[in-house]
């Protein structure tokens, strides 16, 4: 591969800084990235003193070639999907910065921190009220969902 596209160049830089200086509680599965630069698996820990203390979660980031102008597709994957009012049991996350509030000035790191802080501020572990119907009817890609952001407190 001779020259990288701007999106690959930026992903490469983000990857390097995530490996070199990961934010607390965040680790990247470098093996998954080596195979495919457009899909990253990232592990995040539930912070101490929160409802998710001691739990480990895994996020899947999918980037297309318009990144960072187009937002990444971010879902929880694996066996442990956090029980949270904004996280559906299929791993989809209702977070405005992942769709309409996305900005190219955001990054993988800032998305991870937003998700970690969304988990930390939760006061009661429960699924979103429309979980059953949503999981049955939704598109596989959470970015196709027209989210209704009704609650900024958690």
């Amino acid at each position, binding site marked *: 591969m001779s020259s990288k596209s701007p999106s690959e160049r930026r992903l490469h830089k*983000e990857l390097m800084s995530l490996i070199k200086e990961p934010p607390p509680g965040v680790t990247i599965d470098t093996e998954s990235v080596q195979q495919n630069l457009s899909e990253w698996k990232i592990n995040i820990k539930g912070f101490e003193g929160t409802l998710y203390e001691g739990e480990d979660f895994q996020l899947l980031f999918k980037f297309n070639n318009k990144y960072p102008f187009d937002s990444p597709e971010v879902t929880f994957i694996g066996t442990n999907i956090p029980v949270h009012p904004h996280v559906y049991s299929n791993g989809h996350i209702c977070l405005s910065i992942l769709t309409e509030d996305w900005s*190219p*000035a955001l990054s993988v790191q800032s998305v991870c921190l937003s998700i970690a802080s969304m988990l930390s501020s939760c006061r009661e572990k429960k699924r979103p009220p429309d979980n059953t119907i949503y999981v049955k009817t939704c598109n596989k890609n959470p970015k196709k969902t027209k989210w209704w952001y009704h609650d900024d407190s958690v």
Partner: protein
Amino acid sequence: MESNEDVERLLCQKYPGLAAELQPSGACIIRGVLGSEDTWRRLKLYLPHHPALHGFQLYVQESLEYKLYTSANLKLQDDWLLEDFLDHLPKILPAQKAPTVPKELCREGNIYYDILALYKSNEYCLQVDEACSMIRFSEFTDFEQHYLELKIPSLLLLDHSLPDCVSLGEMLTKSAGNLEEALNLFRKLLEDLRPFYDNFMDIDELCHVLQPSPISSKHKTRLFPLKDRVYLKLTIADPFACIASMSLKIIGPTEEVARLRHVLSDGLSNWDSEMNIHKNLLRMFDLCYFPMPDWSDGPKLDEEDNEELRCNICFAYRLDGGEVPLVSCDNAKCVLKCHAVCLEEWFKTLMDGKTFLEVSFGQCPFCKAKLSTSFAALLND
């Protein structure tokens, strides 16, 4: 023992029409055109025992055919070296019948005479390519960066160092009948452009020019910092009329730009034509010098690795076109810096549709503060 470089130097100094090629076997082949007084000969000289001359085979073009000379039909002195051989060649070869070339095929005079006549100058450097199809003048006195490349013998313009708005090709066809006239026209243009280059020279030396990069003699703009977050873009639309065609743009946060635009328009009305652009600008903005990068804390950090300098959208510092991230929003506390082209692409993405409501054209993608429209000046280069 003559090395290949010695041969090349000899040819370059005395026989610009000839080129040497050293074979792995040690043999040497010299080919091209050899000129003396009023004859020109295309030849190929094969020296199997280079640098010795014995066993040579010399092919000389005579009336469209090559004739072979060896020691059997061409007498050499025993103590001759290659240089002596070439020097004596015109005398020991049989006289050439003047070729009859139809008049209309011939430009006035012979292009090779013209090249020879121009060759000895020390005011510029002259090079001809191996195939004798292209001539390059470069390293002009006072204008070291400049060059002119012409196809020969047609004198078609191949490349040159003047700004692209100078229609050099047209001028050459119109008023340069031979090589010397073409060269003189180019040198006259250089002289006419002296104020243009002199004005930029001070700016290039005394300001921290961020764009273009690298600077070439073709560029007509310079962009450099005026103060923190504020930049000045100088454009000279017509290099032959520097001051008359000069435009100055201030690029930066909205309020600062508005204030400095007043300073600028006052300054333009008090322009001192005795001083160059750089000095006028210093006087106008009441500065002793323009800000230069602070490299006092040890060696300069590599710009690409410096996270403070990089664009917050593409994460790179200098783009392939030389652009650096200069855009910051009106919020003095916001750390965002972006390439104007990256922002443009982001705004275009928004216009495309998904976020149809609240199209944030003109908003900082970081803190949503207002972005000054002055940054548009970065886009139309």
